[in-house]
């Protein structure tokens, strides 16, 4: 084992600890704001793992898109639905958690036995390494051209759909309210809340 392999193994261990610990924090912490910041930690550690796998372009894309866009979007959503509510404890809620934990442990055992017993045929060719972005661009514009264009259409559809779903409905005739109230409130149509309890009893 030379020095480079030792450095790789040590950094892989550190990144594994960061990923597992931060993702457990995302799932288990009661405060959702801490969970969102730990999710950013998971994304950055995943970018480090991508660098260990000789993929610099995807690591940069991971940092840009996940940490820069998705995590900030989740933080904004948490701020917009900022309501301190204590969830009512469920009857027999521990059964659900125990059953889910057992299912997840069983799935992990199944996957790990599959991983460890399969004989992988490793490729012996040259690693793309620094030329990975050139190879990815060639794939994008030759044999993956149609999915590449469809991805752009999908992003446009998601943009329009998110704006339409999250838009507030303004009422123009209510904007001539007194100035003191208008400074403090957003002009939004008052809508009655659905009765949650009656409809949930209907479904029970």
């Amino acid at each position, binding site marked *: 084992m030379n020095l480079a392999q030792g450095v790789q193994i040590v950094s892989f261990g550190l990144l594994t600890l960061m990923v597992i610990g931060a993702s457990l924090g995302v799932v288990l912490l009661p405060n959702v704001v801490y969970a969102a910041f730990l999710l950013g930690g998971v994304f950055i550690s995943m970018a480090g793992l991508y660098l260990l796998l000789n993929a610099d372009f995807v690591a940069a894309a991971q940092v840009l898109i996940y940490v820069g866009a998705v995590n900030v979007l989740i933080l904004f959503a948490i701020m917009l639905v900022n309501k301190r509510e204590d969830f009512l404890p469920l009857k027999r809620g521990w059964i659900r*958690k125990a059953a*889910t934990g057992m299912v997840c442990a069983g799935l992990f055992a199944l996957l790990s036995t599959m991983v460890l017993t399969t004989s992988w045929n490793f490729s012996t060719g040259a690693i793309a390494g620094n030329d990975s972005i050139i190879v990815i661009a060639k794939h994008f514009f030759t044999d993956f051209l149609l999915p590449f264009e469809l991805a752009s259409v999908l992003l446009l559809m998601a943009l329009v759909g998110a704006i339409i779903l999250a838009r507030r409905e303004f009422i123009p005739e209510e904007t001539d309210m007194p100035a003191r109230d208008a400074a403090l409130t957003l002009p939004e149509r008052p809508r009655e*809340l659905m009765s949650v309890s009656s409809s949930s009893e209907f*479904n029970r």
Partner: protein
Amino acid sequence: MQLQYFLLLAAALFCIGIYGLVTSRNAVRVLMSIELMLNAVNLNLMAFSNFLDSEAIKGQVFTVFVITVAAAEAAVGLAIILAIYRNRDTVDMEQFNLLKW
């Protein structure tokens, strides 16, 4: 470095994501668990592309597509959560019974 280490890490991350997806009450945390699972899939694709297909790295191309779809999914999902929050005034997953049956 071995392929199996990365695959085991991805399996652990996927199982943690499933646990959070099923047991969490806050709707935003459900979306965060989905992001964890998508990241586990990405790690699988990247590991396979590095160790089994190191010349024509098609796994990285798929990872870029998955990142794109995850960004679109996060935007639309959070918009849906905002719309539900405006109508129902809660983000508790146990009190949503629309879109269920």
